[in-house]
C-alpha cells in the first residue's frame, strides 16, 4: 500500500530531470521545531539555493542545477505547515515527499535522488547501506560565503576495500557532477567550495586522491592531509556543511 505522496511545488520552476543534481533533504534538517506556525530554518539550504542563483546568473539556460526534494518522514509534522513554511521562506523546493520511515529508501530511489541529507545519523546510515549517497548536515552556526562540501579522501584511495561500500558508485558519479558544477565558477568567489581531507594516509595518498578526483572532472579548492592526526580540531575550523565519504561520517568527530 503506497503511503507516499509527492507534491510538486508550483511556486518553483521545475528542473530538467536528466541534468539536475537531485538532493533530498529531510524536513527536520531544514526546519527547526519551534513554537508557532512557521518553523525556523537551517543554514545549508540557502547556500544550496545561492549556488543555483549564481549558476543561472552565468547562464539563464543552465540545466545543471540542484533540484531539492523535501522529504518528511515524521508524521508529527503537518504537511500544510511544511508547504506554507517553504513558501514563507521562499525556499526553492522542487517537490515535497510525504513518506514514512519504512518507505524512505524507496522514495529516494523513485525520485532519482543523488544525495540524501539528514541530521539523523541512523537514518543517513540506513539509506547509505542501500546504495544511496547520504551525508550528515553539520550544525552550522556561523554564516558562510559558500556551500562547503568536504570529501573524505580515504574513501577515494581505497578502491579495493572489502566489502565495497554500497554507496561507492553513487559517490563517484555525484562527485563528477559536483565537479562539473564547480567548474562553472572561477577560483575565487565561488558559491561552492570543495574541500578534500585525507585522514590516515600520508602526502602520497592525498596526491593520489587529488589526481583521481581530477580525472573525474572535480578540482578541489582546499586539501588537508592529516596522516593520523585527530580530525576534530581541523574539522571544527573547516566547518563543512556536509561530508561525503564511504558510509556516513560524523562531523563531530
Amino acid at each position, binding site marked *: 500500500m503506497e503511503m507516499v505522496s509527492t507534491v510538486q511545488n508550483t511556486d518553483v520552476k521545475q528542473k530538467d530531470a536528466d541534468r539536475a543534481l537531485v538532493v533530498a533533504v529531510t524536513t527536520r534538517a531544514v526546519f527547526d521545531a519551534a513554537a508557532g506556525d512557521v518553523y525556523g530554518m537551517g543554514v545549508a539550504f540557502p547556500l544550496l539555493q545561492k549556488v543555483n542563483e549564481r549558476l543561472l546568473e552565468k547562464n539563464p539556460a543552465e540545466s545543471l542545477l540542484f533540484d531539492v526534494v523535501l522529504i518528511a518522514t515524521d508524521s508529527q509534522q503537518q504537511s500544510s505547515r511544511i508547504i506554507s513554511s517553504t513558501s514563507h521562506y521562499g525556499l526553492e523546493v522542487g517537490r515535497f515527499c510525504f513518506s514514512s520511515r519504512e518507505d524512505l529508501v524507496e522514495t529516494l530511489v523513485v525520485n532519482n535522488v543523488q544525495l540524501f541529507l539528514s541530521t539523523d545519523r541512523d537514518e543517513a546510515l540506513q539509506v547509505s547501506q542501500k546504495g544511496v549517497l547520504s551525508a550528515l548536515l553539520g550544525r552550522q552556526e556561523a554564516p558562510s560565503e559558500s556551500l562547503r562540501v568536504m570529501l573524505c579522501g580515504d574513501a577515494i584511495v581505497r578502491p579495493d576495500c572489502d566489502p565495497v561500500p554500497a554507496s561507492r558508485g553513487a559517490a563517484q558519479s555525484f562527485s563528477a557532477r559536483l565537479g562539473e558544477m564547480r567548474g562553472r565558477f572561477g577560483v575565487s568567489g565561488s558559491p561552492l567550495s570543495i574541500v578534500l581531507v585525507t585522514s590516515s594516509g600520508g*602526502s602520497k595518498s592525498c596526491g593520489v586522491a587529488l589526481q583521481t578526483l581530477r580525472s573525474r572532472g572535480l578540482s578541489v579548492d*582546499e586539501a588537508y592531509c592529516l596522516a593520523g592526526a585527530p580530525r576534530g580540531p581541523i574539522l571544527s575550523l573547516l566547518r563543512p556543511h556536509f561530508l561525503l565519504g564511504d558510509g556516513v561520517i560524523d562531523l563531530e568527530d
Partner: protein
Amino acid sequence: FAAVLMFPMSLLGILYCPRGMSLDPVQVKELNVSPSPNGDSRASWEEEEVEEEEEDRLGIATKTKPVSVTDLSSPKPENAVTVAVSSRVLFRTELEQRVFEQKGVEEYLRYQIEHENEPFAPGPAFPFVKALETVNARLRELYPQSEELFDIVLVTYNHAHVGIRLINTINHHNLFIERFCMTGGSSPIGYLKAWQTNLYLSADADKVREALAEGIAAATMFMTEKLTEVSESQLRVAFDGDAVLFSDESERIFKAHGLDKFFQHEQDNEDTLLDHGPLKGFLEALGKLQKKFYAKGQRLDCPIRTYLVTARSAASSGIRALKTLRAWGLEIDEALFLAGAPKGPMLEKIRPHIYFDDQMFHVEGAAEMGTVAAHVPYGVAQKHNQPQKPGARK
C-alpha cells in the same frame, strides 16, 4: 673595539654550570655520511635502497623512499615538536609568484598545473627541514617507540590545484612531510593552533605577526642568493636574545634612553629575570630533545646545537641574560656576546641552519654573509627598523 667573547657555556663556571664535561666549542664530530645514488647524502644508519623514479598508475612521479627499520608513521601533534612551513620558504617559487602578481590567480594556477612534474628548487627553510629530519633519524634509532620527534607540516594558503606539484616536489627531494594544509586562500593561523605548532616559518610577515599574536613562535624568511654550506649531521639553531628569547623590555630602555641608561638598568636589575620572548618555547622544545641524547650518553655527539648571539656584552648586560636562561632551566650550548659588534662574521663561523633576530638590520647582515636568517617581527624594534629590500610578497 670591544673584543668578541665566545663563551662555551661549560666554561662559565660560577655564572652557569651545566652538568657534563667541558666542550671544545669548535669540535663537532662529523658523522660518516656516504652519498646515495641520487646524490643526497644520507647517514649510514639509514637503510640504503636504490631510489628509482617511478610513476604509479595515475602518473604521479614518486621515488621509493628508503624505509628504515621502524615504521615511519607521523607522531601525535601533542607529542611532537611541530614545525609548520609555508611552501614559499620550503621551496623557491619566485617565478610562480611573478606569474601570480602579473597575470592573476587563474593564470598562476594554470601555470602550476602545467609544470606539475617539475619539482621546485629548495628554498631558505629547506636545509633547516632536512636537518630536522636528520635529528629524527637519530632519535628513532635511540628511541624507536617514542613520538617525541620533529613533525614538519606544510601550511600554505595556496590553492589545492598546486597540491600535486607540491607533493611531487616533496617526493623528489625525499622529504618526510606527510601532513599539510592547503587552505585555498583562507588564513592558515587557525590550523597552526590545531596542529599545536611549535614554530611557524613563512614568507609573509603579516601571517607571521598574526601567529606571534596568537602566542605561536614564528619568523619571516627570505630567499638569499648566497648560502654557506651547513652541516648535514647536526642541526644548529641560533637565537638573538632581546625580543627573541627574552622580551623587548631592555630594548625599549635602550631605544628610549640610550646605551648608558640601558647598562644602568641592566645592572640595577641584574637579579631580576627578564620576561620571556616569542622563541623561548622553541628553545625549550629543542632542549628537551637534546636531553634525550644526553640520557643515552651522546652529549658530545648530539645532533642538535643551540647558540645565543647577542649584542649584549659578557661582562655586564650579558649576565642578566645568562641568569635568566639558567633560572628557566634552559641550556644553550654557546653564548656569544658581541658587545655591539656585527653579527654576520660570527654567524658565518657558526653556520646555523637558521638564525632568529628581531631586527631586519641583523637579518640582512647575516644574509649578506650567507646565513639563513629569519625575522621575528616582535617588540619595539619593529617601529624603528624597516627592511632595506622589499621582502617576498604574495
